[in-house]
């Protein structure tokens, strides 16, 4: 597997950064290291990274603060917090503020750690490619302005919203769009099972489809006329 993803490691302990660099470069990743949140944010201005590993307890900016900023600026970057600080409150802050994919406590089991990174990046790749497919289909259907895709890497559900408050589409248009989309995603067989996955909440009808690898696609449908 071509592991050409890039990982940014943020920790105030130099020896940990060195160890991570050795370990991850050995696995084929491209590795960046920063001693704190401030330097990491500067690096993110001009470097693209796929995944961030951050410590919680650091001088200046804390890990959860840093990851919160990253989530706002670049929600597509996978965020993992590691910490040797066994304090419940900071864990809660990390999960809630930083909205992280996972939390690892130091020291970790190396096998599990590497497996986690592979899983996180594989999922990110899947989500990114699905997002791209949807955007391509939207271009074809000339619905680019009307469809928004929300694909955060820390959840396993992509939200596709079709249309705004005022838009009303013809039912056929929507059906053709969905058919094309499912074709592109290779989900033809799943269409028969959609009926069970339709829900109405707050006046919005949504369809949730499991597209494999633990990822779900939730499509919010607009108002439709016959």
């Amino acid at each position, binding site marked *: 597997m071509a592991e050409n993803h890039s990982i940014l490691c943020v920790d105030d302990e130099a020896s940990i950064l060195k160890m991570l660099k*050795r370990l991850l470069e050995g696995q084929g990743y491209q590795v960046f290291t920063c001693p704190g949140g401030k330097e990491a944010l500067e690096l993110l201005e001009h470097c693209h990274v796929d995944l961030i590993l951050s410590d919680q307890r650091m001088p200046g900016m804390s890990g959860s603060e840093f990851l919160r900023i990253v989530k706002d600026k670049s929600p597509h970057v996978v965020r993992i917090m590691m910490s*040797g600080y066994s304090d419940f409150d900071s864990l809660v802050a990390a999960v809630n503020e930083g909205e992280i994919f996972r939390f690892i406590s130091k*020291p970790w089991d*190396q096998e599990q750690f590497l497996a986690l990174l592979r899983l996180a990046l594989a999922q990110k790749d899947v989500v990114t490619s699905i997002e791209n497919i949807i955007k391509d289909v939207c271009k074809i259907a000339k619905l680019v302005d009307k469809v928004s895709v929300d694909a955060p890497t820390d959840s396993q559900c992509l939200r596709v919203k079709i249309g705004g408050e005022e838009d009303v589409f013809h039912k056929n248009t929507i059906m053709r769009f969905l058919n094309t989309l499912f074709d592109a995603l290779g989900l033809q067989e799943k269409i028969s099972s959609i009926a069970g996955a339709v829900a109405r909440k707050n006046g919005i009808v949504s369809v949730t489809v499991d597209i494999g690898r633990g990822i779900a696609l939730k499509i919010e449908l607009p108002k439709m006329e016959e």
Partner: protein
Amino acid sequence: MITGRNFANLCVLLVEDDPECGDFFESVLLGEGIKVCRSRNAESAVEILKEQKFDIVLSDKNLPGMDGIALIKHIRGNYGTLPVVLITGEGTVGSAVDAFKFGAQDFLLKPLDDSELLLKTVWNVVEQRRLADENKMLQRKLILAERMESLGLLATGVAHEINNPTSFVLGNLELLREDMREFAKISEGLQSILADVMSGEQKEVERARKRFEELRQNASLRRIQDDAVQMIEEAIDGAHRIRRIVGSLRGFARPDYETMEPVDLNEELEKSLTLVWNELKYKCKVTKELQELPKVVGNPSQIDQVLVNILLNAGQAIEQKEGSIVIKTYHENSRVFITISDNGKGIAAECMKHIFDPFFTTKDVGSGTGLGLYIVYDIVKRHAGSIDVKSQVGEGTTFILAFPEDTSHG
């Protein structure tokens, strides 16, 4: 029988050469169920004291041979706080003062026919001793309780300071393990390369050359060459850090009561700093100006407790960025000094006179019992030391501790 007082199990040593007085005292005491041991002179009292334990000694002042005062001195010198009541026929203020001066807890005047006065005196003296002992025990428990409270505060920081080095000790060793496994293959590879070269055949030599080039690119080999020693140094360093912090913790958490020994205050300072480091390192810079110090006599755990308390307080006082704590040690005039200064919010003048009061705190409810400095003061006093505080609101606070040098060793 007088109600409210319980004389059961009390044991009295009565040293009285006057038979009448002795008989009277003995009968009153026996009447309350008190055990009495009687002696006519101080010399045999000294022998009896070696064999039996007593709650109180009643002794006449004028005895044949060794007198009552000498007996009191003997008791103070050998039996600690064993209470003594002096019985004296000289009804003067002077002799009463003498009694107390020489270490008696109370006195009774002869001739005595008031049995209630006798019992009341015995009771009060024994009860006072019991309360003093209980007080000492409670104080010791309080010191330990306060220490556990500090330990609670430090626990998560200490865990972090252990977990961090553990991760790179493990990480580096796991990488090196892979490299060592790879090394066996590399070794075999080298042997077959050598065999090919020794054969002299062009095809084999060519193969050897190719293999050698490949080997040079081997990631494990390169790591062993370029990085392995560094990785091992880092791992060893990490393990030392863990050892140091566990050592500090063990010393601090030991429920040791009173053992005093020669102590190097610089060493205790380093141990205490190791424990509180995680609490301080994100808030402030710590500067040390330590001079070589003679030893002082002290209990290491208690001294650590004092230093940890003051350091934690200093850290908590710092609310702004660019916090700084400066620690100095030096000695002069047979005393060893430690000063700890912070540039935190300082102590208001009206609080200053209360900071060593038990349960006094300016922190929010729930964060600390307010016993820290009370215990610090108590421990410093037990060490025959002194503690002084200088502070300015908005500027900072300095604690100055002084302990007497250990002069018992050459």
